[in-house]
């Protein structure tokens, strides 16, 4: 039943996605958690606003499948932000810190997935809906030794994003000069 509801939600969102308009501007979420950063052994920090996204897009290769997919993904986006905090031991960070991020979500944000695991990874995924338009995505992931948040601002193609991991790192298979895509270029 849960799977049905989630798939239905994803289908509705995917079918409702329309070209980005200035009137449907998404909002950026503040992902900084200084207390967590202070305890983390490693921090990954990506902040790409509109100008930097456009600059990055200019340097993406059209000959590389990964980067072609990336170029399609970022079309129309106004920001991509990632904070990933890694810790040396289990339980070193306070999961309730995630509330500082959730409290920023207004009524336009909808939770579309909640994964809860006792031993592995909890993942919450939210989308920002303005009418029928997707204008933002928020992912909150909590593992025993890693806490990651991702905020994408703009018209995100969620199904395409989920399908990307099947492409990243899988090289083209090249036989007898005919270029083929590996099986992982589609969903696994």
């Amino acid at each position, binding site marked *: 039943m849960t799977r049905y509801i989630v798939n239905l939600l994803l289908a509705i969102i995917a079918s409702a996605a329309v070209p980005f308009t200035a009137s449907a501007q998404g909002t950026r979420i503040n992902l900084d958690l200084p207390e967590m950063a202070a305890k983390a052994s490693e921090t*990954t920090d990506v902040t790409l606003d509109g100008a930097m996204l456009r600059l990055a897009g200019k340097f993406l290769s059209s*000959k*590389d499948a*990964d*980067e072609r997919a990336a170029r399609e993904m970022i079309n129309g986006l106004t920001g991509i932000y990632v904070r*990933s905090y890694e810790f040396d031991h289990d339980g070193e960070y306070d999961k309730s810190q995630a509330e500082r991020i959730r409290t920023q979500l207004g009524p336009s944000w909808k939770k579309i997935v909640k994964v809860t695991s006792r031993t592995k990874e909890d993942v919450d995924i939210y989308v920002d809906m303005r009418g029928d338009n997707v204008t933002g995505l928020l992912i909150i992931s909590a593992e025993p030794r890693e806490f990651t948040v991702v905020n994408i601002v703009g018209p995100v193609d969620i199904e395409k994003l989920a399908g990307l991991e099947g492409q990243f790192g899988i090289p*083209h298979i*090249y036989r007898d000069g005919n*270029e083929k895509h590996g099986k992982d270029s589609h969903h696994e």
Partner: protein
Amino acid sequence: MSAAAPLLFAVPDDTLQRAAAGDHESFGTLIREHQDMVFSIAWNFLHDRDRAEEIAQEVFLQLYRTLGEIETPQHLTFWLRRVTSNRCIDESRRGRWRIVTLDEASEVVHDADETDLFLVKKLRQMLQRLPAQQRLAITMRYQEGLEPSEIGAVLDMPLNTAKSHLRRGLAALREWLGVKS
């Protein structure tokens, strides 16, 4: 040859200067000192001996044109690692390389018996699945013995990014190989 072996091929201090002045014999000495390192980076990245040699040759030809800017032997090693890595990434973006399957792989494996051979080939295959930056970070760590800060310097990325590439690459390998951390 391990990263510790270079003492056998230590070059006189003025070899760099003489090579920069156009002495091909001195340049040949430099090539022989560093060819295994350069070739191995390309080979471990591409798993294609022909392409790896082509890249390694291009690196040394580029070195010849740039010798005047190389200040010390340490600078030379750094430069070779960085340029080889960049060329590997460029090559991967061209899509002109292929996955070597377990059946096709033929390589010399040091100190391996038959059961080891399968494992080594499996691990090589899994390495090829990693994104380019993760694969390079792991190569720099395990082939060259570099610390994360040195990996970041060679691959021109912040320390935390280098650490992240290492961590994610190793996590992916563990998951694919079913190895507990």
